[in-house]
């Protein structure tokens, strides 16, 4: 598969989203087993620590974030390519713990997505999560270096600095220059 080519399953999900217009109503996602590992804020920190030493890309998203869902196929492609270079890709879902239909949809979406991700869901109220993680909106991509330090926080919080997957790729290449040096 060529770089940048979305996987068929992800493409089908995306097509469903686009034709639906608003949030995709994928009934097939209901009653699926939990794909995401449920974590508290403290446990999420431990997940990140456990991946050291290694570069981590964490994609923060939610079922209500249409732009998060639309860009997922590109993240799958990035994960496929960079996982061969010892980069760990994680997703952290921020659906409200009380939102059963949103969580069910998210599990179904991820089950059909593929990619070499570890999937997590934050068991926390969204307002609390946004305060704790200092978020303004989703999507957000966090990139940690091998020492666990957050080196890049890619957001769309500034209208004049909207991030793309090219920014993720550039950030990873820059970090890997040091990490892969003999």
């Amino acid at each position: 598969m060529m770089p940048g080519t979305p996987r068929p399953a992800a493409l089908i999900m995306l097509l469903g989203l686009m034709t639906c217009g608003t949030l995709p109503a994928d009934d097939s996602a209901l009653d699926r087993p939990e794909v995401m590992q449920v974590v508290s804020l403290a446990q999420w920190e431990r997940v990140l620590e456990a991946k050291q030493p290694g570069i981590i890309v964490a994609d923060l998203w939610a079922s209500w974030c249409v732009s998060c869902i639309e860009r997922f196929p590109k993240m799958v492609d990035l994960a496929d390519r960079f996982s061969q270079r010892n980069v760990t890709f994680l997703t952290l879902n921020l659906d409200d713990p009380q939102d059963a239909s949103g969580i069910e949809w998210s599990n179904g979406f991820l089950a059909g997505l593929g990619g070499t991700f570890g999937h997590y869901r934050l068991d926390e109220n969204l307002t609390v999560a946004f305060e704790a993680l200092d978020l303004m909106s989703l999507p957000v991509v966090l990139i940690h270096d091998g020492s666990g330090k957050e080196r890049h926080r890619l957001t769309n919080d500034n209208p004049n600095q909207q991030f793309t997957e090219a920014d993720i790729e550039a950030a990873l290449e820059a970090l890997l220059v040091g990490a892969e040096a003999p």
Partner: protein
Amino acid sequence: MMRRLRMAAALLLFIAVPVGAGQYNDIISIGDSMPSFSGLPATDGGSYSSSDFDADVLVLVSLANHCPWVRGMDAGLIELVESFEGQDVEVVGFAVNHREDDRLPAMIEHGKRVGYNFVYLFDESQALGRALGATRTPEYFVFDKARKLAYTGLLTNSPARETRDGDVMFTNGAQTTFYTRDAIAALLAGDQPDPAETRAQGCSVKYE
């Protein structure tokens, strides 16, 4: 060359970009001037400029039809407008996204369906949204008589979202603090809103 200079000057006039950044906004701060705008089409078939609004308090709110947070809080927005009827307050919605379900035809349909009771503008150039640093929907910007930003952020302390089941879910239970309403009331009473900024919660705006 002269044409380029005139265009640059026109752009500067069109967007009086405020300097600095707020606690939850990378572009605009409390006390900054409202960006001017002109000729924005509205769902009522009209075309509006910032000079068309002369109320003591002007509220701009970023919206997007597709956004579950907007849909979840539509009722609260309509109620806000109703609550200040007869007072010197104007509320203006604006949409920035270019996706088909957020553009003007869809805005007209959505506004009719839910009963929007305010002017709803399409900011197709995205200049207004950029100048306000509007990155979430809904996000409220309350300006005083001098058109200085007095409050920005949430409608209430419990943002609501439309779920996939079509229900409305409040993030923090029953709403107990009505930030935007209280900010407007404070300005009408000659006071400054407190808090002046809250962390807006909603969908992200897509800038092209």
